[in-house]
């Protein structure tokens, strides 16, 4: 009934030959729970390790072994639910989902089917065009991850690494509230940010700790929902965008030629940028769900939920509003900062007692750019919050110019050091001594008589003179002072 939350403007639709098409997208995100041990065993849940070194008897499905629920994973799921403003179900049930595959030693995955631990919630997503959408969360359930098959070791055998087998996953299922690759990428990005704030998932897509299945259908404006295809196991935000672009165009092309879309599972090939159907012969699986008799229904008290809620960190949306109201940041700057929780810590440290907008500018424009160039995380930034703060102070105190400040930043980045001392040592102080500046101005004027003629006709030429003087000063002359003295000299100019 309320299957579709909103209908997009034409700008968000795709124009086909026969008119505008709306793309309808829902996402299932598989987020690995950050926990020391696995969902039902005491084996380490850490990524990597020698193959089959994080495997307990339970994970290997030895005869007579029984799962025991790891409370830490339950608390992480509840934390995630609270972070996504979702309903926490006081009673949930683990069920067995059956299928044969070598990476699933038990022959069934313990998952939640009819009664998930978390119910409806929502995520507010800022789209780069400045708008924002609310994506409804249908449910989150806890389940076991599968092992990994390695096919390239031996010509006729496959190898099995069960380190991942049994690691806790949260499957976060959205309603079909997304309308484009841009929406979806922003949604995944926002979700990842929230999970990282909550410290319930590290969000490392390249290590597979966050993966997405995208459900996509298209329809002409105002028509009922089309048949959807599921694109499985997308492990980067870029691929998600490419897969959606390809798949929506493919579906539109089929429909515009009066073809029909088959409901099917498709895989994205990152080399070609195309999606293709998974083994077409695969029949519809019957998972034969039933409650796992080895586990009791999971009962959660309100007190347990309240305790987790009281320890919840400030989340990105709240932080953004606070940055706007307390620090006077612009919405865009605030949302750029809150996208990375560590950047917000960095920002707040630097902003203490300083011009917050200026600090935000420095972080977003200088620091982020430099970090990105070297693919570094802000937590290991070569320029510390203290150093950046000192650099900004030197600018505010007019000891150095903004231009020199950028050079200083670069020196600190490479060589480190106390910014004030570096300024001394490198002689980077701004030239405020008018006598010295006057001398340079004399030299520039006497060396450029032709320019002196020109400026009388073209007053804008003053910029050229200011530039020359600063250049001759080695960038140290304060531009305001240079401008002021020059205007006094060129008294023929209108003020």
């Amino acid at each position, binding site marked *: 009934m309320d299957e579709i939350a909103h209908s997009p403007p034409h700008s968000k639709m795709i124009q086909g030959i026969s008119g505008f098409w709306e793309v309808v997208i829902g996402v299932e995100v598989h987020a690995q729970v950050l926990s020391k041990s696995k969902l039902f065993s005491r084996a380490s849940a850490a990524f990597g390790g020698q193959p089959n070194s994080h495997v307990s008897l339970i994970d290997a*499905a030895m*005869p*007579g072994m*029984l799962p025991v629920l790891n409370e830490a994973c339950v608390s992480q799921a509840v934390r995630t639910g609270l972070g996504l403003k979702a309903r926490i179900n006081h009673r949930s049930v683990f069920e067995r989902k*059956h299928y044969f595959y070598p990476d699933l030693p038990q022959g069934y995955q313990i998952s939640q089917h009819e009664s998930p631990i978390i119910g409806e919630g929502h995520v507010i997503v800022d789209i780069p065009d400045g708008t924002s959408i609310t994506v409804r969360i249908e449910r989150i359930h806890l389940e076991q991850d599968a092992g990994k098959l390695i096919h390239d070791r031996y010509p006729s055998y496959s190898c099995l690494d069960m380190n991942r087998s049994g690691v806790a996953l949260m499957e976060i299922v959205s309603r079909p509230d997304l309308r484009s690759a841009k929406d979806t990428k922003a949604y995944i990005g926002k979700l990842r940010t929230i999970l990282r704030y909550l410290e319930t998932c590290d969000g490392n897509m390249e290590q597979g700790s966050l993966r997405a299945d995208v459900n996509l259908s298209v329809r002409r404006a105002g028509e009922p929902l089309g048949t959807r295809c599921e694109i499985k196991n997308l492990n980067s935000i870029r691929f998600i965008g490419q897969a959606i672009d390809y798949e929506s165009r493919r579906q539109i092309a089929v429909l515009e030629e009066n073809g029909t879309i088959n409901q099917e599972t498709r895989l994205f090939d990152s080399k070609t940028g195309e999606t293709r159907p998974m083994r077409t012969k695969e029949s519809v699986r*019957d998972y034969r769900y*039933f409650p796992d008799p080895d586990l009791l229904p999971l009962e959660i008290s309100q007190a347990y939920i309240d305790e987790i809620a009281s320890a919840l960190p400030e989340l990105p949306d709240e932080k953004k509003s606070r940055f706007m109201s307390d620090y006077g940041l612009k919405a865009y700057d605030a949302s750029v900062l809150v996208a990375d929780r560590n950047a917000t810590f960095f920002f707040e440290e630097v902003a203490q007692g300083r011009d917050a907008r200026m600090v935000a500018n420095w972080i977003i424009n200088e620091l982020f750019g430099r970090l990105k160039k070297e693919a570094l995380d802000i937590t290991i930034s070569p320029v510390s919050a203290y150093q950046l703060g000192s650099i900004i102070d030197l600018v505010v105190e007019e000891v150095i110019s903004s231009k020199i400040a950028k050079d200083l930043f670069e020196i600190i980045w490479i060589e480190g050091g106390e910014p004030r001392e570096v300024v001394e040592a490198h002689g980077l102080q701004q030239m405020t001594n008018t006598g010295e500046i006057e001398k340079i101005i004399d030299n520039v004027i006497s060396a450029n008589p032709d320019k002196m003629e020109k400026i009388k006709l073209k007053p804008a030429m003053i910029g050229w003179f200011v530039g020359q003087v600063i250049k001759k000063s080695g960038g140290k002359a304060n531009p305001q002072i240079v401008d002021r003295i020059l205007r006094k000299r060129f008294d023929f100019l209108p003020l």
Partner: protein
Amino acid sequence: MDNLTDMTIAAAREGLRRGEFSATELTEAYLVSIEASNGAINAYVLVTHEIAREMARGADDRLRRGEGRALEGIPLGIKDMFCTRAGITQAGSRILNSFKPSYESTVSSNLWSDGAVMLGKLNMDEFGMGSSNETSCFGPTINPYRIKGTDIPLTAGGSSGGSAAAVAARLCAGALGTDTGGSIRQPGALTGIVGIKPTYGRCSRWGMIAFVSSLDQAGPMARTVRDCAIVLESMAGYDPKDSTSVDMPVPAYESALTGDVKGTRIGIPKEYRLDSMPAEIEQIWQRGIDWLRDAGAEIVDVSLPHTRYALPAYYILAPAESSSNLLRYDGVRYGFRAEGDDIVSMYENTRTIGFGPEVKRRIMIGTYVLSSSFCSDHYLKARKVRTLIHQDFERAFEKVDVLLTPVTPSAAFPLGTSTLDPVRMYHNDIFTVAVNIAGLPAMVVPSGVNADGLPLGLQVIGRAFDEPTLFRVGEVLESAAGPLPRPDVWWR
């Protein structure tokens, strides 16, 4: 003390404590007996001589120092359903061929930490699926009892047939069994011994190979009620490794044996009086009622209206869960593997050859009843029946303390008569499955022999976690019935 293997656990315990004989002597006596008898009885699938001798030596050391524990030096047999570090564990199945666990089940481990001595692993129906021990990949166990004047091999019952026959033939002092739908009580009845299926959750299922996870429960089998009480006290207890085990203190079961049932209310459920019931079963049941009444108990007629749905519900729930529990036997990581051209044919070949026909039948039934098209007709309905049966018992126990019923619809039957007709075999469980469905404790007590000289037993069903009352009533029945005539020793 001329025959050590004839002693009950209680008597052997005293003899050991007093130093009348050693644990080594007792163990050797059993090993000799096993050596001479097992070829004919086929109760043991594996005898762990060396482990037994080593454990007995350890027990003797402790006894000498006066540090004997509850089961110090008592030689026991272990149903092959329990994973043990000693030897191999196959649950009667080819698919676990040569499987050697690196771990010990909680229940057997509890016995060893109380000083018991392991004699070996006992035969059973494959994965517990059978009532005659004929589905075992090691061949059937033979009942020590025979129809008077014949030598027709009779079943020892199932699935704990090996445990039952070993206890009856004096090949161990006591044994571990498991009971999912009657697997301790039915073979106990057919071999004239005592066995108890404790309340679901009383004993840990960790390390016990899963047949039907929501019904399986480990229990002791021995020659007397007291012996069962002694062994259960060691086995039982909370285990954090089994989420369905219950964190409640284990009562001192032996001290419940007061011999007094005055005023105890004994319920007789009318629905257990079947039209087709043989006269000998009817008679033994009546005799049991009379014994308890004579001992001062109050006999109360009760009704368990949904009894007739228990067997069909069981034969949906049990295959459903077991079809899932058996998925792990895929030839990839352990046990038997039949090679194939690819992974799918390897799975198919392994499971086709590795599982016997009864197991395959139940996998198919279980897969069918769980499939999305039929789940609501079968599995979900069976779960509703489960709730109703539970409520039946709850209501009955408002009026009575225990229930007294038959255990089996007949005495031991010749081998080969039940396997041809699976439904007939399933019928053996008619009096026992409701107890598992409701998770209640129940005990079989040998109560007499029929005209052919074959043992017959009675079942006492109790409230959840009220094993003490079961033991108390069971012992009164046991002494009223007196010891059963011993079978002629034809097997050695």
